[in-house]
């Protein structure tokens, strides 16, 4: 690698460095020799698409996995971490992308899990509680230390995860997508905490898909692509365009909404749909929501996490029941139909969490793709192999899944390709209306662009698309119409010429709790 950073005098002392670090899993080279430095009291952000090797690198730095080649240099001396506890003992801790909390335990117990404070008579719960309270104060979060984690919303759970890492007093803190579930206000607080930590000399390694947000906080940028470091620069020398260019290797534009055609009749009509909280709490997650979507139209539903978007789409798809209201698909009221009947009538949902709701991990790529259209290749009692194979190959081609074939294990695909399988599965049912819930979550910008292209093509052919997202940029690149949802209701409606700021303001982002 030629990109070994030039040491500049103002950079501060290097505390942790990677030298030619490589990691292979059999034939797959996740990292192909990476060099970079982490400076004392500064934030180093790793940028890169999914599968670029960011998480692998972080796991190596935090001792979760060991590199196949290369060295980790801590305070000028080469080290090898036996495991993550070893790394933690040397002052390196990590906030993982996936939450690793025990939902049944309280906030206090989660924060001190595995390193309980011992008093003379066993665990000193009072002291743990006091420290937890202090941590929560520091994060400006009103969470009682004794609340079970499962009763917190996702963003608060992420705060707990962050608090746990902070409680260790590490010198180097690795944050892997810490803000994915946080509101704008919470992100502000987190950034304040990060600045505070910096001033205390703590070095931060930051990973985020949210490029603009990361640019606000970072001091250095490292860009990874395909397991190789493509660029390294201090904040002053870079901008958004530089990062994206280095991430994807060319200028990438997500485009603008498909145009040059008229919309058809109303394909899906929601009338005053109200959905009670599925967990049984005494409020409505969707409150008298009404919306008409025409054939060929792409409607974006923008909102923060917890705005009720997922519940709305799951109700329309038939998983949740509305307490009142009508769902009308091409003139037919479908509220009483099962999920299967709705799919058969042309209504498809691509769920938010592809691992939990989208894919069957024990089945092959092909079987996942054909899962929602089994009836199409079943004659009498038996499925027809040839017809199924044709359907699978057709789907793989149409949604451009990169796979060795329909027989490949679903786990062998990258996140973006797995998402394409879920989309392909629902498109194979020949829907008239497709609803996508945060389809771009955790997929890289290249895959995102391909998904957008696919949706635009199908919309031109008359497919009605409802696209739910929490990224404003996506709304503007795909949607003809933007609905902003806040606390279960429509708080604003825009056409595609609106500015990002207006959308965000309507979502309650500035006043979010």
């Amino acid at each position, binding site marked *: 690698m030629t990109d070994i950073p030039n040491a500049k005098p103002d950079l501060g002392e290097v505390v942790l460095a990677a030298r030619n670090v490589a990691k292979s899993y059999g034939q797959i080279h996740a990292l192909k020799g990476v060099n970079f430095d982490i400076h004392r009291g500064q934030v180093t952000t790793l940028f890169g698409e999914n599968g670029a090797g960011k998480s692998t690198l972080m796991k190596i730095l935090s001792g979760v996995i060991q590199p196949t080649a290369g060295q980790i240099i801590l305070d000028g001396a080469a080290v090898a971490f036996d495991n993550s506890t070893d790394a933690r003992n040397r002052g390196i801790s990590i906030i993982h992308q996936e939450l690793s909390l025990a939902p049944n335990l309280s906030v206090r117990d989660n924060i001190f899990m595995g390193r309980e404070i011992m008093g003379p008579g066993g665990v000193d719960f009072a002291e743990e509680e006091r420290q937890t309270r202090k941590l929560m104060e520091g994060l400006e979060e009103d969470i009682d230390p004794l609340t079970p984690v499962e009763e917190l919303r996702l963003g608060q759970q992420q705060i707990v995860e962050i608090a746990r890492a902070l409680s260790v007093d590490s010198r180097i803190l690795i944050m892997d997508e810490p803000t994915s579930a946080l509101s704008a206000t919470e992100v502000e607080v987190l950034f304040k905490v990060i600045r505070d930590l910096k001033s205390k000399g703590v070095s931060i390694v930051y990973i985020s898909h949210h490029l603009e947000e990361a640019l606000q906080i970072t001091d250095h940028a490292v860009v990874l692509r395909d397991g190789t470091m493509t660029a390294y620069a201090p904040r002053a020398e870079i901008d958004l365009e530089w990062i994206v260019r280095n991430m994807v290797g060319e200028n990438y534009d997500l485009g603008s909404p498909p145009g040059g055609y008229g919309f058809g009749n109303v394909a899906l009509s929601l009338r005053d749909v109200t959905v009670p909280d599925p967990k049984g709490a005494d409020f409505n997650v969707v409150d008298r929501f009404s919306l008409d979507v025409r054939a060929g139209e792409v409607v974006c539903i923008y909102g923060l996490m917890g705005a009720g978007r997922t519940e709305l789409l799951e109700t329309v798809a038939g998983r949740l029941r509305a307490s009142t209201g009508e769902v009308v698909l091409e003139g037919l009221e479908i509220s009483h139909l099962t999920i299967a009947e709705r799919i058969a009538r042309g209504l498809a949902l691509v769920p938010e969490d592809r691992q939990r709701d989208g894919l069957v991990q*024990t089945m092959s790529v092909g079987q996942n793709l054909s899962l929602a259209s089994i009836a199409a290749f079943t004659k009498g009692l038996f499925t027809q192999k040839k017809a199924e194979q044709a359907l699978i190959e057709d789907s793989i081609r149409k949604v451009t899944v990169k796979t060795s074939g329909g027989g490949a294990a679903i786990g062998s695909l990258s996140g973006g390709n797995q998402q394409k399988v879920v989309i392909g599965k629902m498109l194979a049912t020949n829907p008239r209306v497709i609803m996508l819930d945060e389809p771009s979550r955790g997929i890289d910008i290249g895959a995102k662009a391909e998904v957008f292209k696919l949706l635009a093509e199908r919309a031109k052919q008359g497919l009605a698309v409802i696209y739910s997202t929490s990224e404003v940029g996506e709304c503007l690149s795909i949607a003809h119409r933007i609905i902003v949802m806040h606390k279960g209701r429509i708080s604003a409606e825009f056409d595609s010429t609106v500015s990002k700021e207006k959308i965000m303001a309507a979502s309650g982002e500035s006043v979010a709790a």
Partner: protein
Amino acid sequence: MSDTTISRAATPKASFSLGRLLLEGRAFFALIAIIAVFSFLSPNYLTVGNFLIMASHVAIYGILAIGMLLVILNGGIDLSVGSILALSGVMAGAMMQGIELQALGIILYPPVWAVVVLTCVLGALVGAVNGVLIAWFKVPAFVATLGVMYVARGVALLLTNGLTYNNLSGSADLGNTGFDWLGFNRLGGVPISVLVLAGIAVLAGLMLSRSAFGRWLYASGGNERAADLSGVPVRRVKITVYTLSGMLSAVAGLVLSSQLTSAGPTAGTTYELTAIAAVVIGGAALTGGRGTVRGTMLGAFVIGFLSDGLVIIGVSSYWQTVFTGAVIVLAVLMNSIQYGSRARKG
């Protein structure tokens, strides 16, 4: 035996190593090893006659294990199969002895075919109770079937007062002879019970690998939420597998009481555990979504041939228990190696 290739299709191509082969075909190699060892130890083991006798013993477990496989593929468990087997046997016995209708002052002697049909319906009904409890009332499968296990066993004891119905051969005057046909007769030298097992296995294999229902079952066992959102009727699938498991338990109950020409309320105790063992040895994952009829059949034969072999060479039955346990643990260990390595690759 027809079979599905779910797990095999998912295997990467360049893994044709000996270790891989041994791991994937472990139940098969275990069976070969068992046959080889016992043939060496006893001259009587490796004879057609002995094989057919052992196979007729395996039939009972095998039929239960196929039902259990369906349930386990769905991610559940059915602890009630042994009790349903006993209840079905007792009901069949009661019907063979005549049903007294006191109000009319007559005793009904249903023909054997009717006894068989009614018994299967009873088993299916009890299984359906399991299914409804689990699918609609969200009772965990372990608890629901544990409860039904006790209830069914209790009802069987109540019906007979703890006694056993002997002499189920019926009589020619009443037109209900032929109950022993299932357990004793042979077609072309093969015991009927073995043919019944083979027939059920072929049907189950076809259902799993070729029918839409089979695909639904694998999908809902692998990820119920994803299957649900893809339009798979997950509740119906669940109720169906428990119903089928109950019905197959009834079939096994008929075969057993026919083999013994008696039906007792304590028959089939702990058979559910043997059935689970056969499924697990056959490579199915208890978490659901993975497993084949072929594997389960091999598992049933491994258990049956092992315990019969130990009897033939005169090993104490206490040792049999120890050996069976060891085989089960070994099988689960291999499962976790196989699925564990795949998960890491993914």
